[in-house]
């Protein structure tokens, strides 16, 4: 394989890119940054090992997810993707609390409305010219 058709992984590692290169389908030469992220965080041999252990039809998704995780770890070296997970968990709690609060307000309004309607009904009942012998 000529130099110009090496995948991003082999280019970065300065080696020949064989026909059956495990990484080539998932780390094309036109996106070198994607490989640099995964290489920095997981290491080329770890990535190759992990992909080799998967059926071919799942390797694409796995490589994408590892690239995402590596990117998140580069962006946030302390928490990585766990930071995002935590933020989403916090958001969920906040939105749930907001929903509970609004549902509570709706319940109060509905109760007040019912009370108001009952009051109006009673008022109209007792304001007629009916003559009751009490």
């Amino acid at each position, binding site marked *: 394989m000529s130099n110009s058709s090496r995948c991003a992984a082999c280019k970065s590692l300065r080696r020949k890119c064989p026909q059956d290169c495990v990484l080539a*389908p*998932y*780390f*094309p030469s*036109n*996106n070198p940054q*994607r490989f640099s992220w995964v290489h*920095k*965080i*997981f*290491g080329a*041999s*770890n990535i190759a090992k*992990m992909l080799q*252990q*998967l059926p*071919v*039809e*799942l*390797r*694409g*998704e*796995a*490589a*994408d*997810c*590892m*690239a*995402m*995780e590596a*990117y998140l*770890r580069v962006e946030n*070296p*302390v*928490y*990585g*993707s*766990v*930071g*995002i*997970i935590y*933020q*989403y*968990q916090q*958001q*969920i709690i*906040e*939105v*749930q609390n*907001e*929903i509970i609060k*609004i*549902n509570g*307000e*709706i319940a109060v*309004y*509905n109760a*007040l*409305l019912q009370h*108001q309607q009952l009051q109006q009904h009673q008022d109209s009942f007792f304001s007629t010219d009916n003559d009751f012998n009490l």
Partner: protein
Amino acid sequence: MGGNSPCASCKLLRRRCAKDCIFAPYFPSDDPHKFAIVHKVFGASNVSKMLQELPVHQRADAVSSLVYEANARVRDPVYGCVGAISFLQNQVSQLQMQLAVAQAEMLCIQMQQDPIMPTPQIEEVDPDHKPSLLQNNLPHQYLNFASSSNVRESFFGHDMVS
């Protein structure tokens, strides 16, 4: 961390555990599995490099998150942590819809009430407006991770095999 007993990392790597071993504070010898899983996914030298680049007071948190990620990847070798992110994104979307429905219902009640009813402080439902508590620091690309083609282009190769 005893005087002469090697930490879990040095035990696994079969080397002498130096006094200033970078792993020792975070990988005690009584929990060999913790280092084993991090080494399996990230590699000891990568972990060492990552820790060295961090100030000391952040290293414990970094190790905890690395252990979490490594565990997630071993449990789910395809999606790892990203599976959890995707799941939580969907949950947030569903809750956003529920919130919008509740807010719309509240608005209807307000509009139906006569002036004697107290008017609560509630923002009007705007179809283009996400509730402000959701417009936090979370970058837009993560909110649309599962479907945004812009994100996929950045992270994912063009020759994806699926």
